[in-house]
């Protein structure tokens, strides 16, 4: 259970229901560790880091973020499918999902926010909401279960976001050449694929560069 530190400990806690227990642990920012933006003249940009559960989204964000990763609790209302609807009483279920994010200040007065968004289809509305205005998406994959990334890529394509695929090399996971991975992931020839260790900063920056170059190439193409 997270206890998000309040900047004013004397204040009564929020009456909102507390989040579900989290499955991925992270270091807690202690009181007084709010990291404010250094200036208000910066340009803020957003990238979405997505992929199947446990693929290393939060790890990559943590590796890159200059602040301890934060999360928001996003409440989603989903109508339950199937028989309930036939009774004319569509039951609404409320799901709380944690969205991790981090911040990376880039030389040149740019700040990149990285949002780890769940890849499951049932979160698509939330996904769309977070992805709106994003530069692009990093779709993460695990060589032991590449197919788990298919629905995620479908979602990103449906949203129309440019994306690069980052294959997180887990220790002990089978290694494959880029060519083999591209074939198994059925990637379009222009879609970048990068193999990385999400715990490694250089690797992780490399995934951002690959995505940035791809976004740039698409803008160039679209230019009249």
């Amino acid at each position, binding site marked *: 259970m997270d206890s998000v530190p309040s*900047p004013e400990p004397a204040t009564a806690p929020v009456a909102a229901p507390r989040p579900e227990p989290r499955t991925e642990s992270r270091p807690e920012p202690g009181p007084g560790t709010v990291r404010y933006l250094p200036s208000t003249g910066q340009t803020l940009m957003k990238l979405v880091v997505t992929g199947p559960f446990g693929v290393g989204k939060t790890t990559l964000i943590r590796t890159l973020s200059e602040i301890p990763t934060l999360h928001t609790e996003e409440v989603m209302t989903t109508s339950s499918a199937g028989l309930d609807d036939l009774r004319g009483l569509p039951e609404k279920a409320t799901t709380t999902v944690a969205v991790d994010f981090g911040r990376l200040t*880039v030389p040149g007065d740019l700040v990149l926010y990285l949002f780890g968004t769940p890849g499951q289809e049932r979160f698509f509305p939330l996904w769309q909401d977070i992805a709106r205005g994003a530069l692009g998406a990093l779709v993460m994959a695990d060589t032991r279960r590449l197919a788990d990334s298919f629905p995620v890529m479908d979602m990103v394509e449906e949203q129309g976001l440019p994306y690069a695929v980052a294959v997180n090399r887990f220790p002990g996971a089978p290694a494959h050449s880029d060519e083999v991975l591209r074939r198994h992931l059925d990637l379009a020839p222009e879609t970048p694929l990068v193999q990385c260790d999400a715990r490694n900063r250089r690797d992780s920056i490399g995934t951002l560069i690959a995505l940035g170059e791809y976004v740039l190439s698409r803008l160039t193409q679209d230019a009249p």
Partner: protein
Amino acid sequence: MTPGRPGTSGAAAAPEPGTPGGRGRRLVPAYLATGGRERPRGTADFDRLTVLVSTDQRPPEMDFGPEHRRLWTLLRPGALTVVECAAHLGLPVSATVFLAADLVGGGHLLARSPVPKAEAIDRTLIERLLVGLRALP
């Protein structure tokens, strides 16, 4: 989006003529009552990355709730995005946007778009990003 200029909006206030309290004044939300604008600053202008900063003015009056004051207090030392405020306060982003819109309307906070005016997500920006990413230690 244009949530960044609350200072410019007060002068343009145009109170509805000929509506002296006959229409249930108490239902007017705080940001309308205190903002004196033609219409409230819409929450639609806010994004997760909208930058919020305190205006160094008086703290929110008592007609704002404790949540408003928590947000305002959080922002006293410096600027944060809406999503960072939400995370620090343990509130959903949507609720944080409502609080922020109220406080901007009341002149307690300034809000600015993530991308400064006259700048778009264009080639130049992505090129700057790439140069910056390659220069990262």
